[in-house]
C-alpha cells in the first residue's frame, strides 16, 4: 500500500551498489542537506562543493552505518562540519586576496543574518520530515514552492499528477508531515510562529 521503501531497505540496497536506491536516498535528503548548508554564509560554489563532500562521505559511510535510521542525523552533523570547514578555507583565501573573486562570491548569498538558531532548527526538522514523503508529494511541493509558482497544469505535466489531484496531494503531504516525530514536536507552537518575511528590527 505504501510505495515508500523503508530507509533501512534503501540503505541495504545501496550498499550492494543499487543505483536506484541511492538515487532515492539522494532525492529524499538533498533538501535537508542543502537546508543545513544554507544556514552558513557559503557562496553557491562552496555550497555545492560542501554538499558533494557530504554525499561522498555518505557513500563511504553506507557500509558501516549500523543504524540506517540515524542517516538524517548523520547528514546534519556532517553538513555542519563541512560548512565550517569550507568557511575556514575561504577565510584563508580571502585574507590572501581580498579583492578576488571569492569576495564577490560571498556577496551572492542571500542568507538572512538575523536568521536565528530556532528558526534554522525548525527548517531542518521540516526538511527532515519532507524526506519521509513519497516521490509525488515531494515533487509537487518542490515545484509549488517556486516564485512565482507554476500553474497546476505545469505541475501536472512535470509530475504526472492530474490537475485535480494536486491540491489533495499537497494536503495529504502536509498532513503526513505533521505526523512525523521530528515535525510533531514543532506543532505545539507552529500556529503562533510567524512564518516568513517579517522584519526583526
Amino acid at each position: 500500500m505504501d510505495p515508500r521503501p523503508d530507509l533501512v531497505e534503501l540503505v541495504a540496497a545501496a550498499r550492494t551498489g543499487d543505483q536506484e536506491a541511492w538515487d532515492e536516498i539522494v532525492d529524499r535528503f538533498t533538501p535537508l542537506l542543502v537546508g543545513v548548508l544554507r544556514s552558513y554564509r557559503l557562496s553557491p560554489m562552496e555550497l555545492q562543493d560542501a554538499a558533494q563532500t557530504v554525499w561522498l562521505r555518505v557513500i563511504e559511510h553506507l557500509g558501516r552505518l549500523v543504524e540506517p535510521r540515524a542517516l538524517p542525523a548523520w547528514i546534519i552533523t556532517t553538513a555542519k562540519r563541512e560548512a565550517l570547514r569550507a568557511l575556514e578555507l575561504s577565510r584563508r583565501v580571502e585574507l590572501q586576496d581580498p579583492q578576488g573573486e571569492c569576495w564577490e562570491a560571498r556577496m551572492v548569498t542571500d542568507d538572512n543574518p538575523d536568521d536565528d538558531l530556532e528558526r534554522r532548527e525548525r527548517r531542518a526538522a521540516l526538511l527532515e520530515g519532507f524526506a519521509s514523503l513519497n516521490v509525488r508529494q515531494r515533487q509537487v511541493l518542490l515545484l509549488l514552492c517556486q516564485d512565482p509558482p507554476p500553474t497546476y497544469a505545469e505541475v501536472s505535466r512535470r509530475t504526472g499528477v492530474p490537475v485535480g489531484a494536486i491540491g489533495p496531494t499537497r494536503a495529504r503531504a502536509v498532513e503526513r508531515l505533521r505526523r512525523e516525530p521530528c515535525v510533531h514536536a514543532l506543532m505545539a507552537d507552529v500556529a503562533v510562529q510567524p512564518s516568513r518575511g517579517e522584519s526583526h528590527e
Partner: protein
Amino acid sequence: MNEPYDGGGDRGCQGDGEGDDALYRELDDALRRVFPFVDEVARRAKSAFTWRTVDEDLLTAQLSFDTARAAGPALTRAATDGGGRVLVFTTDLQSVELEVLTDRLVGQFLPPVAGAVDVESERGVLATVVVDDLGFFVVQPVPDVRFRLHCTTATTRVVTEWVQL
C-alpha cells in the same frame, strides 16, 4: 493564478486546517530556500555513485599469511585435518603523509614500504604513481579538484578521505 483545486478532495484531507496551513507555509519557506540548489546537488551526488559504488572499507586488511599456503600441499592437508591452520591478516601501512608543494605533492607511506598510489577524483583515476622502497611518491601536478589517494602495498589497500587542497 493557479487553476482551482478539486475542491472536495482537498478539503477532505485537511486534518487540522489552520495548523496545516501554517505548517505548509513554513515548509514552503524552507523549500524555497533550498530549491535553487537541489537539482544540481542531487545530480552530482547521483553520478558520484556510478563511478565507484559503495567503497570497500577504508582500510582493507588483507590475508598476509596462511599456513595452508606457506606449508605446501602435503602439509596443508595435514594441517587441515588437525584443525591447526593459522591465518594472519595484516596491514602494514599506518599513515600516509602528504606535503603540498607549489607544483607537486610529495608523499610517504609510513612505516616506509613500497607500493602504488592511485590519485582518484570523483570522475575516476587521475594518475597512478609508483611508491619506492622508502615509501616515497610524487604526484605532479597538484590535483585542482577534490581527490583521495587509493594506496596499495603488498599487503594493504587504504583509501584516504577526500580532500580538496
